[in-house]
């Protein structure tokens, strides 16, 4: 039993290692700015961070289960995700960033939107964190692919753990992002209180998040689709 908990600790460490390795830096910056964007409400930052963590953990559980329970080819899945997800991520982030920066608006059915519908759409910003977690978890880079497919999956296979170890790994990948986002949000809130400009800071943080998403989306598209900077 102790060995199993040691394996869980190893899975957590592998997740943290994945998160702090340099290759997912761009997506981590996007996640940090998304989680910490509602600076006036720390509870919102906490909820968004937890939903982002759940999104990541769920993705690794599903991937782990697919590999462990079925005879799905690890190389095929790993190469498919590395080849296509990073390409798709760029345009998706640009569109998401345009919504965050109010450059695009969700279409309303039948003209004016009801207040309830608008409230629901506002709340979906929090739930969007789950989607973001799923999307970023699927965007494997060489280091994260090596750690997930090369270390976590063999560990999960050894312990026949298709749920606990992959989900602990997912939590590990989200912890540094979650911590940074919370610290930044709390810092921004303190600054806002000092200058009595909380709503103005909130307004600009949201737009800055949109700009970060767009910039990272353009960077990922140029790198993975157009091969800019590839040697």
């Amino acid at each position, binding site marked *: 039993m102790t060995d199993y908990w040691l394996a869980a600790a190893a899975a957590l460490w592998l997740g943290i290692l994945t998160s702090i390795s340099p290759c997912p830096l761009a997506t981590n910056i996007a996640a940090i700015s998304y989680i910490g964007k509602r600076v006036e409400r720390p509870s919102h930052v906490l909820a968004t961070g937890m939903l982002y963590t759940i999104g990541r953990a769920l993705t690794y559980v599903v991937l782990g289960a697919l590999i462990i329970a079925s005879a799905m080819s690890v190389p*095929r899945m790993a190469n498919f995700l590395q080849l296509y997800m990073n390409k798709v991520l760029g345009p998706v982030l640009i569109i998401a960033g*345009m919504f965050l920066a109010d*450059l695009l608006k969700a279409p309303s059915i039948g003209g004016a939107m009801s207040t309830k519908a608008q409230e629901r759409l506002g709340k979906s910003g929090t739930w969007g964190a789950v989607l973001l977690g799923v999307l970023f978890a699927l965007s494997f880079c060489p280091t994260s*692919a090596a750690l997930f497919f090369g270390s976590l999956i063999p560990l999960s296979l050894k312990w026949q753990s298709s749920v606990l170890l992959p989900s602990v790994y997912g939590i590990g990948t989200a912890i540094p992002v979650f911590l940074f986002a919370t610290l930044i949000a709390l810092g921004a809130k303190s600054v806002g209180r000092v200058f009595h400009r909380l709503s103005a800071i909130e307004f600009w943080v949201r737009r800055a998040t949109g700009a970060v998403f767009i910039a990272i989306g353009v960077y990922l598209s140029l790198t*993975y689709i157009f091969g800019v900077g*590839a040697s």
Partner: protein
Amino acid sequence: MKAASLIRLVLLLFVAISIGAIGVQEFHARYLPLSATAAQPAPPFPRRTRVVAYFFHANRRCAPCVQYEETAHEAIQEAFPDELQQGIVQWKSINLASAENRHFATEYQLYSRTLVLVKVRDGRQAAYNNLMDGWQLIEDRAALKRYVQSEVRDYLKEN
């Protein structure tokens, strides 16, 4: 207001071009004939066994990937200069993103950038070793070199 419209238009255009480019690349990869690769002259075989070191990368090379590739290449150049010259040890850098190289992924069970050593005996592949453990030594250049050299040496032993 006009600036916002212009930014919106430019970004949407960029997204459309990006999606189009993904489609074109996929079409090329699936339907266009493979580029003919020039037949390479067979190296002289003074011994029965030779080792081919493949480093598999993609279009975008991340910093740790470059570090792994450079360290492994240096390790082989430093320890096996004569074998490299005689063709007993060969170094090949392969782009897995190229359609004609994708078969390597299933052939050598590749799931990330890595170094694979292939033992060729009497002109045929006898064994291969995926050195994924090198990723755990990426921060320790000397240890990574020793690991690569020891694995190549093991394959050459059986001559």
